[in-house]
């Protein structure tokens, strides 16, 4: 049995009926099919969004690292402040941005808010049109929304698809699997195997190693291990001591996102294509159906009037994208701005 980050809960995938995947779909645009341009995200239908779509375009920038699109950013004020998705930005690689008119820019990171996964960037003033904030409290299920795709050259439309709510935090994972038949061992907990991209395996842990300590806490059962690891977030460094034979070996493991390790084992995630590494741990999100890629997070989500009612924050699965409500994003931006101002004084 596979465990998640050391917990023993059965995998969700075991409890969810799959839906058959059809491998050969009819050729696109066969005469019997609705032409592509007339479909929900066809050119004609999308064009109907009108000025609202243009508003989204004028406030969206692409963010690149090492020449690759990593996220979108939202222009929030005339001074050149942008919001983007923090966890998509690698800490060490230089950033570049492309404005709606195609101008290449070098943004600087003024601050990050890990709680809401937002980063505040700064570019010179006048490079993008600041968003017109709308009121996310007025949205109901079924309201049209739109946002730019990751290259910021086309729009996607869809609806608010579910109830606005909190998405509970998902702790980081070690990426180890434990033997469910293993009796609680007084010495520690034996590693049975590793998930894909396991950070524990990357650091050199092996099957059969006994985990005996996490930080300062002795580990004697699977439950204790699960509780200890779940205190930490993805990307946190955790000190772990293992026993291999007679030898005690200390490791420092950078926990990974659950999605990076175990998503490949989850049928729904497998049929979802690429999703955001961080797609949980948000105090308040709007849920919509725009089929955006993870690199399209950080851009504005607009309503039919072209007002920005949210900032796209996570591609969760094939049918789900989350956006932080505009009021929350705006408040975080204000906090990051004043923190940056203080720091520069």
């Amino acid at each position, binding site marked *: 049995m596979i465990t998640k980050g050391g917990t023993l809960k059965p995998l969700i995938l075991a409890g969810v*009926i799959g839906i058959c995947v059809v491998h050969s779909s009819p050729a696109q645009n066969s005469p019997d099919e609705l032409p592509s341009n007339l479909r929900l995200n066809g050119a004609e239908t999308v064009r109907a969004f009108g000025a609202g779509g243009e508003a989204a375009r004028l406030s969206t920038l692409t963010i690149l690292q090492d020449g690759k699109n990593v996220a979108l950013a939202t222009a929030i004020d005339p001074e050149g402040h942008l919001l983007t998705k923090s966890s998509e930005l690698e800490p060490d690689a230089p950033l570049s941005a492309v404005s709606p008119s195609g101008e290449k820019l070098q943004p600087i990171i003024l601050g990050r808010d890990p709680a809401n996964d937002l980063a505040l960037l700064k570019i010179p003033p006048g490079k993008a049109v600041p968003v017109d904030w709308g009121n996310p409290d007025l949205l109901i299920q079924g309201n049209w929304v739109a946002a730019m795709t990751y290259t910021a050259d086309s729009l996607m439309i869809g609806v608010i698809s579910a109830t606005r709510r909190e998405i509970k935090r998902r702790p980081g994972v070690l990426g180890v699997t434990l033997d469910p038949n293993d009796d609680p061992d007084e010495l520690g907990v034996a590693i049975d195997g590793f998930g894909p991209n396991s950070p524990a395996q990357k650091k050199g842990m092996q099957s059969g190693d006994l985990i005996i300590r996490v930080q300062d806490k002795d580990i004697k059962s699977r439950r204790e291990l699960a509780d200890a690891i779940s205190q930490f977030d993805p990307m946190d460094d955790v000190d772990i001591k293992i026993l291999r034979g007679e030898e005690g070996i200390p490791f420092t493991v950078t926990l990974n996102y659950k999605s990076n390790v175990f998503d490949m084992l989850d049928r729904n995630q497998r049929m979802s294509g690429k999703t955001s590494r961080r797609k949980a741990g948000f105090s308040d999100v709007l849920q919509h159906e725009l089929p955006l890629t993870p690199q399209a997070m950080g851009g504005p989500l607009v309503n039919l009037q072209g007002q920005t009612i949210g900032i796209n924050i996570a591609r969760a699965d*094939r049918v789900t994208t989350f956006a932080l409500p505009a009021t929350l994003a705006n408040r975080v931006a204000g906090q990051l701005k004043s923190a940056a101002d203080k720091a520069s004084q």
Partner: protein
Amino acid sequence: MSKGKATLRVNHAPKDRDFHSFSLLAFIFSASSLGMQSLQRIPLTACLLLTTLCCTNLAANGQPLHAVFEKDAPQSPADLLEIQKQVSSVLDKAKQATVCIVGNGSGSGVIVSEDGLVLTAGHVSGDPGTKVHVVMPDGTKLEAESLGRSAAADSGLVRITEKKKHPFVDIAPPATVFRGDWIFAIGHPGGFDKERGIVLRVGRVIHRSTDTIQTDCKLIGGDSGGPLFDMQGRIVGIHSRVSKKNEQNYHVTVRAFKRDWYRMLAGQVVTIDDSYAKVQRKGGFLGVKRISHSRGVQVTGVVQNSPAAHSKIRAGDVISHINGKKIESLNSFRTLINEHGPGDKVLLDIIKRWEGGTKKVEVTLGNRNDFLPARKPANFGK
């Protein structure tokens, strides 16, 4: 394309409305007295309404749908807003009847009768007789049992065994959804989540065949068995399978449910052979629209230039026998006709509504394909 063309293009919207007469002819169906507990709810008047108002869609309140639904594509934010309003007007009722089905895994379903009959996907209902739970939108768990399913079409039935009045929605008459129609999908993707609630997706029909509707509504595991609705808030399909492309997914048609209805109600697993053996057509064609009648089938309309028209069969006439065999039901009428090919002569006993009396009429059957658009085979096994 300029906005000025919008009104012109209404006339040749790429919707298959011209198939209406075909659909009605082929699938006209009556509320039968054989215990068809859910499809019974489809009022015959709806069929008749469609014959008279062939190209007009009506909203749930009886008002015609907004003009946007006759356009190739919405042309403006105002058009999009009309779609939003129309979905909103029927969404609440649709959600109240949409359930999560928990058995070996988790799927979705939709209640179609007050006594708790649930349409779902065959791969959700599973083996007939399986005990499952039906989870209502508020989280209430009800005891339920799988009835039959079709392994061919992926249709399935579940019955809630707890006796109470359940919220339910109507099923659209078979074959009333067409390419280009706006539709919406709801369900419990990934399983029941009370805080999140039932998840909505809006889209259009890409293609429809006998057993399958393809739409651009996005689906994922857990949605299986959930309902696809038309803009009147009637069920037109049940979510079945996804393609690799995010915005191309598949739903079982209402027609597929209807074809295997009694066998599924009786708890049978219907295979491809069962589904098609009995509707093998030799292609003989008479050309009457009909409803069931105590003495056979009653003609409600005659196709122009058809063998029936040449034989002076008129609306109101009752056909009681074919080649001396008594017509017991609409189905037996179809079966008896289908035993014959084009050019075959059949002897009909007809009770003449207008002239009075009974008459034996010999009719040479025509070729179905000369009168009807060719049918596409269903997308099985894909």
